[in-house]
């Protein structure tokens, strides 16, 4: 199981504390409005951008994010206040932990869709396009000059690009992310042993490493577009490269934002060695993002 048991008191079986069911909350409906604005805005914006027409989509999308951030602040403020005033029982804590674990499972499956596409493309689609299996005629009729290769630097349709090397910047980035997972672990042990100094420093180092990673990713994208001619539109290799690294980058960004808020809470003196679900959830998320990167590094860059 993903969860780590903590000594949150031993009132599991005998006495039951009342399970805290919050009273009415305005935040869910605000969040639903935010998602509506984001989805409807994005749906229009995508058309406007690709057609280069003016429209309201972009504004609506931006408004959606503003409302979403407003909602998150309000919702989390409520949750933190409730937590700080001791309304949350050990059972409640388990609900949060299990909820977060299943959320991470769903995220794993999201990445699986893209990894699955990558494997299918490399192992099956490219082989078949070059006449593999029972597709000799497909090959002859469609693109007789096509050669299956990976990275796919020349598509059947003739788009050429260059591959991103595995060494150099990506390797440095891998090291950065792995180290950030280690520093976060030390921040966690600091919290558990009530060494607040270690907690603060290690958390800050983790954040800085995360920011460095993201900065280098941006640099790598610029390098890919400018120097290698590797773009989102340069065939299956570019597609999987940018979609996988891009969604990973978005997850790192989200993880870093979560850690930043955890850091602010640490500075305010929140969290105890026994009770620190928010910290734990952020750490799980960060480690998850790290593991995704390791898979990504192996399958996108190395192999």
């Amino acid at each position, binding site marked *: 199981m993903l969860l780590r048991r903590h000594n949150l008191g031993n009132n599991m079986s005998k006495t039951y504390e009342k399970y805290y069911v919050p009273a009415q909350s305005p935040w869910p409906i605000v969040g639903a409005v935010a998602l509506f604005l984001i989805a409807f805005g994005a749906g229009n914006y995508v058309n406007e951008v690709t057609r280069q027409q003016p429209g309201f989509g972009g504004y609506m999308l931006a408004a959606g994010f503003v409302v979403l951030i407003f909602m998150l602040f309000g919702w989390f403020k409520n949750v933190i206040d409730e937590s700080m005033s001791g309304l949350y029982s050990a059972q409640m804590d388990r609900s949060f932990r299990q909820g977060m674990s299943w959320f991470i499972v769903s995220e794993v*499956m999201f990445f699986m*869709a893209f990894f699955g596409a990558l494997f299918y493309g490399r192992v099956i689609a490219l082989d078949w396009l070059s006449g593999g299996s029972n597709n000799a005629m497909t090959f002859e009729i469609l693109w007789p000059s096509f050669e299956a290769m990976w990275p796919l630097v020349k598509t059947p349709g003739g788009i050429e690009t260059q591959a991103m090397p595995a060494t150099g910047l990506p390797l440095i980035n891998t090291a950065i992310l792995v180290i950030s997972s280690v520093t976060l672990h030390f921040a966690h042990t600091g919290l558990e042993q009530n060494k607040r100094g270690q907690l603060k420093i290690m958390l800050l180092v983790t954040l800085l490493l995360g920011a460095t990673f993201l900065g280098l990713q941006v640099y790598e994208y610029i390098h890919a577009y400018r120097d290698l001619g590797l773009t989102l539109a340069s065939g299956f290799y570019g597609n999987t490269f940018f979609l996988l690294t891009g969604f990973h980058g978005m997850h790192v960004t989200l993880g870093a934002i979560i850690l930043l808020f955890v850091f602010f809470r640490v500075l305010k003196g929140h969290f105890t060695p026994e009770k620190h679900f928010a910290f734990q959830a952020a750490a799980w998320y960060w480690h998850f993002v790290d593991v995704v990167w390791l898979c990504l590094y192996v399958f996108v860059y190395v192999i």
Partner: protein
Amino acid sequence: MSAVVTDHEHEHHDHKPAGIKRWLYTTNHKDIGTMYLVFALIMFFIGGAMAMVIRAELFQPGMQFVEPNFFNQMTTVHGLIMVFGAVMPAFTGLANWMIPMMIGAPDMALPRMNNWSFWILPFAFLILLMSLFMPGGGPSFGWTFYAPLSTTYSGDSTALFVFSVHIMGISSIMGAINVIVTIFNLRAPGMTWMKMPLFVWTWLITAFLLIMVMPVLAGVVTMVLTDKYFGTSFFDAAGGGDPVLFQHIFWFFGHPEVYIMILPAFGIVSSIVPTFARKPLFGYASMVYATSSIALLSFLVWAHHMFTTGMPVAGALFFMYCTMLIAVPTGVKVFNWVATMWRGAMTFEVPMMFALAFIVLFTIGGFSGLMLAITPADFQYHDTYFVVAHFHYVLVTGAVFSIIAAAYYWLPKWTGHMYDEKLGQWHFWCSLISVNMLFFPMHFVGLAGMPRRIPDYALQFADFNAFISIGGFLFGASQLIFVWVLVKCARGGKKATAQVWEGAEGLEWEVPSPAPYHTFETPPVIK
């Protein structure tokens, strides 16, 4: 099983907030369950109206009422609405209402998130329905949105479709997380795994499937989006991709998805049959194992939707045999329901009638599924009305009938009043006859080669189609009786007792009818 329902001196006990804010801001699982159910009913009628358009067009050969493009939009949006807007929210509504009461929990585990999951849905479907009014119309590529229909050949509304599916997925995932955590963490002491009602078991497994596959759907719509708008070629062979890749990813989501729409139905039928047969469920443990096996097998059968894409023979054989294997646990279930009724003291109230119809008609859908699973035979059946007949037998007389059965079964618990039994029987018999007029002849026109999703057809299918359309209109009209029953029951009627049904067992039948606003603030003890 008996429960001690200790009453509580909670200050908010049974204090319902008033007005619209009650529904907008609620964290109460019963309120949220009601909203899900009402939403699903509205969507059922909107999606049903689209089906009426389809059947009106197909009443006679030739083009009658609508343009082919609009016909395609109707088939597409009918499918999307019925799957994501009617059946899934209805099951989630039932889960919200019943699971906390069945396991002795105070509410769902994450009540605020629960409300968020619900309120996303009306907005998601608002976007989908608004897209129908865009220039060029709404999505018209079938609910399965195969590439390149949804990429190269689709209209401007595709982006709206993609993002509405994204937020529907967010809603489903949050709902599923809530269900799983509630069942794992909020069971009353003594409610051990193998004491849980089967509805709870089947929903636990459904929620697991949702968490595993809804993100894959999000992934595949994202690839459709980038292929259409941002120049990627995931599903374009010229760029090294493959349109068949779309089908693989989609059906990796899609096949577990069809079990998401039927496993809770199994749970419902497993609750209703023992009540009206006045016997405990036959083979409880085998039901749990059968449900789990079906869920696991559902990840290994997706390519049976794609036999005609030209996959290697070894692949086709693997998917054929795995698919046929699913008949084994499903057969176990049908056997168990029948064995439960064996020598039972049966009565035939409306929930039982729908449950019995479910058992017979769902099994017909299961058998036509077995026929479709046979690869060489599927080459004949693929994309014909035989497929339409198959999945409407499992989804309408399967999933929808079970939802209706559940509504009749638990309605007295929700409203505190008995529904009108006579009207309910009318609803049942009208539905039963018309639904078979509607879908049974589709088997024959399908076997004779009538393709699905086409607004016109060859003349030899004319008589059958006229008959099918009449069945369709009658089935649609029959559902108005259902609304009548629901409204009548919500407004009043004979007082329901706590147990409601003589043979009913379980925690939900030990709280008063209507169930108090807050049940089990302190967990009951289950012996």
